[in-house]
């Protein structure tokens, strides 16, 4: 094949020369183009090409001129130029004009490479020619391929993610999503791709991606990267559920995309809500408590407290929350929560539950006050917490101290009184013994030697001294009964009665009384005092007698509480009911000295003895018929056996 003649010979030399010039110009343009260019005729044969085309395809110009273009672009080029039934070649070509068409080029050595061609028509003498600008797009294609692979990989990651994920472009449209997103939102992929993300996250997502005057889209996004954002998602069925989304940017050929990982936090939210309600309820209880309360975690830090605690300790809530409990209870609180080798935290705590522990609390101003704390465990998400109810026991402590002082004072004054009674009666005896002895001596030596007045005076003096002596002796007994330590032992009450009768000796004989008794039991009592008791009661029974033989009977019987009730019954004068209580008082007498001598202390001694045994004494009587004194010896006096000496 010869050189292409674009112009046919029939146009003559002048036009021929013109043509040659224009062809020359065209060829110059062709060579100047940066891309490979070929000009193809309607038959699909190459009629012209530039040096870039030679280089790219590896042919020399001569090897291509006149050859089929399919040699270098096997498919897709020629076809585009061929008319079919519905269009002409020109029409077919027109459709391709100006659009880049991606095809494959083939070099002389047979290797292929991706090309993009741009077609443009060229009218010539030989008919319609087509100029094709051929661009080697190997590099771009490789880049595209790489991107596609990345995208595929990315999609794989997307699908592998446990959370629902969507990728949104700058317009807020969904460009990618995974199967979890489909499931959670109830849409199919196709229903979401290309749709605004507001369809599924109505508020808060798109806004975050939008630039305002102060920041770019990248900046807007950057502010959201990596932070969990709680929003509400909308399912296809209209249902809503709480989500947390995490955004991350994704550079892509289409601009910055945003990948959003969407997590359904319904369960967590529900848990949180439950926790919050429980906490609110608990806090409500805490605040309703009248005592200061603090809640302490296993590290000994205060996690919660009520307003009473704030007031009492002088701190604000913020000053205490998170602080060690030792700030307000320096000693003894934290220690109780600490496990040692032998026990766990729970055990350590359990040992303290429900028992009041007395400790010292420290106010912010440094003041201390005594407290009693009650601990109780509280299971929480953060482990076992300890709720401590703290009671200020300043007042109680003061009251206790006061009570102790008062008791000590009372004991002291009681002791002093007993001591006084003893010493007074004892020391009174000395001068009295002098008065008594010398009046007696006077009477003995001088009665009958002076006048009758003197005898009478001496008589009164002797009598007075004697009565005073008896009074002092009785007072001594009374004070001893009150002062001496009571010596409780199992003793025979029968034996005590027998001793009393021996002590009464002369009085008993003089009166001619008949004293009888039941079989009296063994009891728990102070021997000396029980003897004194019988002695006074039997003594009284004999003393206050009517004409005739005084009869006294002592008996014992068990009452409903299985205790022994004793009674001393006589046939004496009896007592008017109005005096039943009265007669057990100190110095209480029912008779004149002319009728009966006595100090009025005897029954007071009886009452004191019975009182000291924890028992009681009373009298029943019918005046003129006799009296019955009944006594019991209290809780400690009963014994199993019914046995006498």
């Amino acid at each position, binding site marked *: 094949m010869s050189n292409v003649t674009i112009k046919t010979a029939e146009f003559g030399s002048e036009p021929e020369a013109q043509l040659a010039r224009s062809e020359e110009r065209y060829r110059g343009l062709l060579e100047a183009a940066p891309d490979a260019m070929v000009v193809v005729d309607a038959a699909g044969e190459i009629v012209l090409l530039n040096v870039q085309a030679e280089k790219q395809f590896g042919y020399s110009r001569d090897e291509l001129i006149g050859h089929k273009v399919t040699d270098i672009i096997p498919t897709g080029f020629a076809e585009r130029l061929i008319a079919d039934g519905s269009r002409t070649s020109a029409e077919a070509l027109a459709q391709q004009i100006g659009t880049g068409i991606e095809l494959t080029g083939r070099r002389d050595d047979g290797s292929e490479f991706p090309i993009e061609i741009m077609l443009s028509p060229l009218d010539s003498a030989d008919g319609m020619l087509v100029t094709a600008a051929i661009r080697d797009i190997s590099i771009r294609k490789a880049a595209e391929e790489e991107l596609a692979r990345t995208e595929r990989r990315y999609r794989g990651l997307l699908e592998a993610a446990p959370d629902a994920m969507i990728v949104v472009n700058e317009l807020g449209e969904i460009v990618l999503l995974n199967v979890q997103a489909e499931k959670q939102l109830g849409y199919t992929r196709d229903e979401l791709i290309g749709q605004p993300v507001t369809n599924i996250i109505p508020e808060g997502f798109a806004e975050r991606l939008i630039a305002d005057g102060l920041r770019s889209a990248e900046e807007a996004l950057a502010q959201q990267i990596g932070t969990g954002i709680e929003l509400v998602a909308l399912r296809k069925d209209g249902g809503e559920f709480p989500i947390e989304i995490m955004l991350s940017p994704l550079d892509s050929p289409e601009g910055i995309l945003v990948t959003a990982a969407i997590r359904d936090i319904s369960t967590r939210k529900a848990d949180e809500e439950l926790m919050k309600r429980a906490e609110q309820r608990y806090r409500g209880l805490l605040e309703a408590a009248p005592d200061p309360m603090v809640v302490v975690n296993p590290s000994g830090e205060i996690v919660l407290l009520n307003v009473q605690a704030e007031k009492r300790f002088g701190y604000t809530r913020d000053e205490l929350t998170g602080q060690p409990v030792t700030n307000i209870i320096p000693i003894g609180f934290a220690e109780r929560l600490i496990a040692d080798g032998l026990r766990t935290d729970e055990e350590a705590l359990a040992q303290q539950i429900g028992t009041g522990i007395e400790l010292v609390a420290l106010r912010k101003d440094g003041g201390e006050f005594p407290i009693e704390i009650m601990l109780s465990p509280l299971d929480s998400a953060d482990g076992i917490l300890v709720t401590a109810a703290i009671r200020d026991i300043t007042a109680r402590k003061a009251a206790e101290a006061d009570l102790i002082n008062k008791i000590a004072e009372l004991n002291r004054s009681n002791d002093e009184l007993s001591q006084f009674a003893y010493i007074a009666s*004892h020391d009174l*005896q*000395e001068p009295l*013994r*002098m008065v*008594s*002895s*010398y009046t*007696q*001596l006077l009477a*003995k030596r001088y009665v009958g030697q002076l006048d009758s007045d003197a005898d009478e005076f001496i008589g009164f003096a002797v009598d007075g001294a004697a009565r005073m*002596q008896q009074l002092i002796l009785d007072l001594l007994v009374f004070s001893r009964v009150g002062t001496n330590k009571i010596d409780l032992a199992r003793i025979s009450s029968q034996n005590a009665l027998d001793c009393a009768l021996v002590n009464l000796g002369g009085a008993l004989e003089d009166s001619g009384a008949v004293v009888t008794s039941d079989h009296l039991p063994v009891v728990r009592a102070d021997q000396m005092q029980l003897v004194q008791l019988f002695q006074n009661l039997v003594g009284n029974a004999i003393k206050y007698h009517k004409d005739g033989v005084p009869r006294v009977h002592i008996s014992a019987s068990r009452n409903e509480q299985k205790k022994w009730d004793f009674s001393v019954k006589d046939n004496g004068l009896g007592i008017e009911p109005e005096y039943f209580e009265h007669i057990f008082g100190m110095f209480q007498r029912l008779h004149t000295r002319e009728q009966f001598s006595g100090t009025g202390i005897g029954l007071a001694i009886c009452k004191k003895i019975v009182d000291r045994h924890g028992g009681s004494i009373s009298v029943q009587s019918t005046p003129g018929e006799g009296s019955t004194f009944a006594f019991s010896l209290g809780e400690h006096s009963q014994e199993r056996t019914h046995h006498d000496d």
Partner: protein
Amino acid sequence: MMTDVLLVEDSPGDVRLTQEAFRAANPAIRLHVAVDGVEALQFLDQQGVFADAPRPDLILLDLNLPRMDGRQVLQHIRGNASLKTIPTVILTTSNAEIDIHQSYSLHANSYLSKPVQLDAFEALVKSINEFWFEQAKLPQQKQARR
């Protein structure tokens, strides 16, 4: 031979009553009186105004005395080789168990409490005289003294 009794007693009323009672019981008894423990020891040790005091055949000792009480006097007597054989009888108003126990611990020969009634007191003195000077045998150490 005269019988010498040392009465250690601070109460003049008791001294007189005891003198009266001894006079009635045994006129041969010489009753010497020391009004406190210090005087009693001076008498026994024949010191000062008591340089010529006889060795008593019996000591009647009250417990509660001024300056030096009866317990200390008793202790001194029992700690002294020449005095410890003298019968010493506690005669006091105290009925306290501790006093009784202490006295016997210090080797008192007996413990008597003063009766309240005159008759009883006279009877007691009478029986002291009968027991110690008519029935009991006493060590004959009178000659050993000047």
